[in-house]
């Protein structure tokens, strides 16, 4: 047993000498195929019951490697699971059997917007319903009733951000946060325009404005606004990656430049394969070299269960940025 905590900044990332290097895409695809549950979905880790978010990203990861023969059947079963899991109101719950939708609807919509989904079946209705739910899903803050109540009770705002710039919350009727807002924007941007419900463009504009409003002066994003937690927030790799992916249309904005600079500076120090693969996915979309061997090493370090979601991101991260259109690129449907 160790004594005092070590100074982690001084210690290089540990590599487990017993584990062989993880090879992408071959081992990533094999892992996804082998860790798929019999019902067609994926859990957050192998052997866990199927959940919407890992299933959506696993399917997208396989979609990015469509050349691999073993992907096809696995992908078809994954899409079928997603379609089965959709609720009557068009949303997706976090886990099969739950009765209320959440931010995972965006991930499911993003998967349904992928190229192979349209080759396999006809996801138009499911996708359109999902998008309708997303566009109707407003956060709990910022509406006229909420403003009136706060004014009446003389409540101080919880943060300095503009509550009129309404994004998306994790769950219905709660506050808007960076990650669910970015995911919803990605889903709406990836879907064919003809499936966009009324008000989709308004929501996209508001969501983008909210993300830009929440960019930190130091560069990058935290999970919420700069002062959500009561102090000057520090940027985090995950939220920064999400925001940058969702704001690719605003290439020359100062917030984007500062955020991308920050992510490029810190990406090699990002802890954890989950965060690291997400950061690599973001950098890949922006055409920034991140180093495949670093990404492969992230999966071979330590004794930890590998996440299908992170593998999905990693497979998307190794797709050439100029490659065929995928869910995270402009759709050609």
């Amino acid at each position, binding site marked *: 047993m160790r004594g005092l905590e070590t100074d982690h900044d001084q210690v290089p990332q540990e590599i487990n000498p017993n584990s062989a290097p993880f090879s992408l895409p071959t081992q990533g695809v094999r892992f996804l195929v082998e860790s798929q549950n019999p019902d067609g979905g994926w859990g957050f880790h192998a052997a866990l019951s199927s959940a919407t978010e890992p299933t959506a990203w696993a399917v997208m990861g396989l979609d990015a490697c469509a050349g691999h023969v073993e992907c096809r059947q696995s992908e078809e079963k994954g899409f079928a699971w997603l379609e089965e899991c959709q609720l009557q109101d068009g949303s997706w719950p976090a886990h099969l059997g739950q009765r209320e939708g959440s931010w995972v609807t965006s991930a499911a919509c993003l998967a349904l917007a992928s190229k192979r989904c349209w080759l396999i079946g006809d996801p138009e209705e499911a996708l359109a319903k999902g998008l309708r739910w997303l566009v109707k899903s407003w956060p709990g803050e910022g509406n006229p009733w909420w403003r009136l109540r706060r004014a009446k009770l003389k409540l101080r705002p919880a943060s300095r951000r503009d509550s009129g710039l309404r994004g998306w*919350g*994790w769950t219905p009727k*709660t*506050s808007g*946060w960076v*990650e669910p807002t970015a995911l919803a924007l990605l889903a709406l941007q990836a879907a064919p325009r003809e499936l966009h419900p009324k008000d989709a463009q308004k929501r996209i504009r508001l969501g983008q404005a909210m993300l830009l409003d929440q960019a930190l002066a130091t560069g990058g994003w935290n999970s919420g606004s700069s002062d959500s937690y*009561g102090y000057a927030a520090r940027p985090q790799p995950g939220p920064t990656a999400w925001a940058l992916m969702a704001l690719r249309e605003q290439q020359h904005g100062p917030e984007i430049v500062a955020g991308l600079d920050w992510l490029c500076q810190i990406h090699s120090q990002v802890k954890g394969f989950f965060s690291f693969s997400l950061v690599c996915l973001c950098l890949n979309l922006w055409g920034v070299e991140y180093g495949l061997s670093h990404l492969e090493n992230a999966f071979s370090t330590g004794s930890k269960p590998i996440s299908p979601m992170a593998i999905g991101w990693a497979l998307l991260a190794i797709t050439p940025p100029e490659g065929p259109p995928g869910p995270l690129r402009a759709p050609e449907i």
Partner: protein
Amino acid sequence: MNGKESPLLPPHQRPVSRVCIRRAESYTVDLAGVIVESLREFHIPVQGKSVLLKPNFVGLDSTGAMNTSPAVAGAAREAFLRLGARRVTVAEGPALERDTWAILEWIRLRDYIGPLDRNFTDLNTDHVRQVELRTRATTLHRLYFPESVLGTDFLVSMPKLKTHRWAGVSLSLKNLFGIVPGSCYGWPKNILHWAQIPRAILDIASTVRPDFAIVDGIVGMEGEGPLDGKPKNTGLLVMGDDPVAVDATCARIMGIRPERIGYLKAAGCLLGHLREENIRQLGEPLASATTPFELPSTFRKLATSPDKCVMKAGAC
């Protein structure tokens, strides 16, 4: 013996609670020995049982004040195994940092508890089951909880000794926010904020009441906790089988009257003992352990208004 089924009783129907305060000057002393010795005083029936340790792992912090020390988590695991527990798992579902494994890598938990794939459960991504809440402090009525928590024989809350900007103090009851699964509610678990933090603490603690609490006060956090406070060396471990009594004792150690913390005051009505006369102190006397903490700015008024309860957390 499982707190989850423990009856909700008013103080006059509860036996006197016991709380043990132990000196541990640093994380290098024989913490497992200290914890085993204390657990023996409580005659805890963990022989052959599954034990789930729920520390407070918040984020990638370099001060050592934010997270329950992995040394304490590892020592508690060893202590319960020495007492004959069949299986001891460390489990956490961080509320703010989505990448649980990045935190574990940062704090090097594997060095203290062994292989993480066998000895650690990420509560944010575990199997979940919906449970009816036993109280109605919020309007949530039901929440999803991880099967690992619902299925364990013995649940141990292992918080850090901390002040908290929104709750006053963050101890063994507030630590239970980490059992609410992020896979269902996001990062942060914002639904609990909308339900009001003190009220949500009560509903969760009444439904999934810990069987035991071990508070890491060797280095605590004062001021703007849980994220932006300062390290405070107190050199203490605080333990007990009544989480309310443990939290009340910790508040007193920090120089805070627990009756002024709304959710603790309400918890003292049904979940455990708050009043000093109902708590028998073991180990170090409370008076010599007391080390006033700097209060968060949101709670400073408390120090000058002795009769004011900070947050209305339910009728008492």
